[in-house]
């Protein structure tokens, strides 16, 4: 048995994914859900078209489809799901007033995004994403008609900050300047690079690596296991109250219930230092998970924090099904990357002072 020497956090994710897949074809995990995948195809357009056709065929086949249930009668969301998209969270300014692409425009936007994603600058990166089957067009992500993940407000943009939140952010920025040029784990790192939480919130926003997840169900519970950081969310369905308000958790405190075929999860009790997009521990998150076809969960969320945003806002993103399993993500245990980043920054600062 070998000890893995993982040089940097960025490298960790790639090496993990590649080496972990050694016993199975490299492409198997990335392309699950799309049997049309052919690893010898290296032409982006051909690949996207084949996948789009396969998706259409699948959609037609499930036109009169009844979502499955578990043995105990709950809607069945079990499986492995990917949170990845090439649709921006906020609608770009040049697309103002245009919430939806035509099919042709969506195809073109997707193609542009995946080709950009597959491009590698040899000065900064010493591998080719395509070589490892990790560029997006090999994944089950498909073109999206939406021009932004945000569906409400209708302009597809995050609502304005409240005056209180603006003051908070200005104070935080001033504090950061005051600390300069001191650099440390807590001033340079974020929750993800410090291995405190992964890249999947909650709420879940698409992330371009290691955004796989698993949903398990037992009577009375839904469990969501994230690949990134091994984050686990245990969601009781029995209607119990939330933990007392003073109990803060980095992943919040989740409670779920079913509305028809949709799992609705309400999460509160976020840790006061979590600071998700400038929000406070008053953040309330509502998420909705609906299996819309055998290979896709429609994921919707609404965030509300009256001390941060002038109104609640909502986004929507598909989670395509992928193949099992997930792997252990011992992030903090071998967090060499954070040290290297901080040391590098310190060296640059020392140089600047000379």
């Amino acid at each position, binding site marked *: *048995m*070998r*000890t*893995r*020497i993982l*040089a940097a956090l960025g490298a960790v994710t790639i090496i993990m994914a590649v*080496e*972990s*897949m*050694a*016993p199975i074809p490299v492409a198997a995990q990335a392309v699950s859900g799309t049997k049309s995948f052919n690893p010898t195809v290296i032409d982006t357009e051909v690949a996207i078209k084949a996948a789009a056709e396969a998706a259409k065929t699948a959609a037609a086949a499930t036109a009169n489809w009844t979502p499955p249930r578990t*043995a*105990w009668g709950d809607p069945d969301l*079990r499986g492995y799901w990917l949170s990845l998209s090439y649709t921006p969270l906020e609608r770009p300014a040049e697309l103002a007033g245009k919430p939806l692409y035509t099919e042709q425009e969506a195809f073109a936007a997707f193609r542009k995004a995946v080709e950009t994603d597959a491009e590698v600058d040899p000065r900064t990166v010493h591998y080719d994403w395509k070589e490892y089957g990790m560029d997006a067009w090999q994944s089950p992500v498909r073109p999206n008609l939406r021009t932004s993940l945000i569906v409400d407000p209708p302009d597809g943009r995050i609502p304005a900050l409240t005056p209180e939140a603006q003051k908070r952010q200005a104070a935080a920025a001033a*504090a950061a300047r*005051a*600390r300069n040029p*001191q*650099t*440390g*784990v*807590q*001033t340079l790192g974020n929750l993800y690079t*410090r*291995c*405190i*939480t992964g890249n999947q919130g909650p709420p879940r926003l698409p992330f371009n690596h290691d955004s796989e997840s698993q949903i*398990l*169900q*037992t*009577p009375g*519970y839904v*469990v969501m*296991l994230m690949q990134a950081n*091994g*984050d*686990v969310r*245990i969601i*009781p369905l029995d209607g*119990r*109250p939330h*933990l007392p308000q003073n*109990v803060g*958790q*980095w*992943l919040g405190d989740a409670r779920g219930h079913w509305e028809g075929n949709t799992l609705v999860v309400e999460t509160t009790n976020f840790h006061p*230092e979590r600071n998700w997009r400038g929000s406070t521990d008053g953040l309330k998150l509502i998420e909705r998970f609906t299996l819309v076809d055998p290979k896709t969960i429609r994921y919707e969320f609404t965030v509300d924090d009256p001390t941060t945003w002038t109104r609640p806002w909502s986004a929507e993103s598909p989670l395509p099904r992928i193949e099992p*399993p*997930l*792997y*252990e993500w*011992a992030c*903090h*245990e071998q967090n*060499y990357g954070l*040290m*290297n980043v*901080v*040391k590098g920054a*310190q060296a640059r600062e020392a140089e600047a002072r000379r």
Partner: protein
Amino acid sequence: MNIRVRGVMIAVAALWLAATPAKGQAPSAGFPAYTPPRTADGKPNLNGIWQALTTANWDIQAHGAQPGPHPELMGAWGAGPGGQSIVEGGEIPYRPEALAKKKQNLETRMAAKVTNDPHRYDSGEPELQCYRPGVPRANYMPFPFQIFQTPGEILIVYEYKGASRTIYMDPHREPPTDSWMGWSNGHWEGDTLVVDVTGFNDHTWFDRAGNFHSDALHVVERYTPISPYHIKYEATIEDPNVFTRPWKISFPLYRRVEENVQLVEFNCVPFVEELMYGPVGLYKPPSR
């Protein structure tokens, strides 16, 4: 380790175990015969929140109460409770050189040093640094854990660090690489869940006392429900690099029965940043 070699060793271990009469304090002693309730697929239902009530996390062998490493700061908070052994027969069959290493581990258990290479694992107790605890230690840390049982997979989520492990029931899967929590494949023997755990790295310890293993560690766990509120937990530990023969631990797991009981997050990473990164000058407390 070569799979074939491991297979032979497993067979040898099985023979050894079969020839050894069970001794020690079986936690089921005195319990009447019990037939556990079933899941939808007819298996014994282990779902629930469970917790060990031993002091094995301090030392899996018998030990007296001890002051903490910094009594001048921590007073009685840092002290460790005394407790009885969870090791069958009391003794761990270390190879001589391994016993020396165990003693050295104990001496250097507070020496957490953080490097950007695997030398960071040379000393310092893993729990001190908020590392994943490995198996079987995860099951006797002083934190609850929750079992989620499905026909194909059983997920165990530990409150400590939010660490989790999947036990593959059907299909079984081969460990793709070494890991902290190991790789678990399970099957049922009557009402007992038997879990074969391999694929460990050599970075975890069994306790704060320095008891350790190599990456050849192989653990076979047995979870047997003996009442609605108790599981008899047994584990056979085999590691020819460190021990002269397989050995066994056992203790009961207790069901947590409080109303609305749930795991409360214990994300210890922020708690160890100053300890781990401070000495190399990486920590600057933010002004709050």
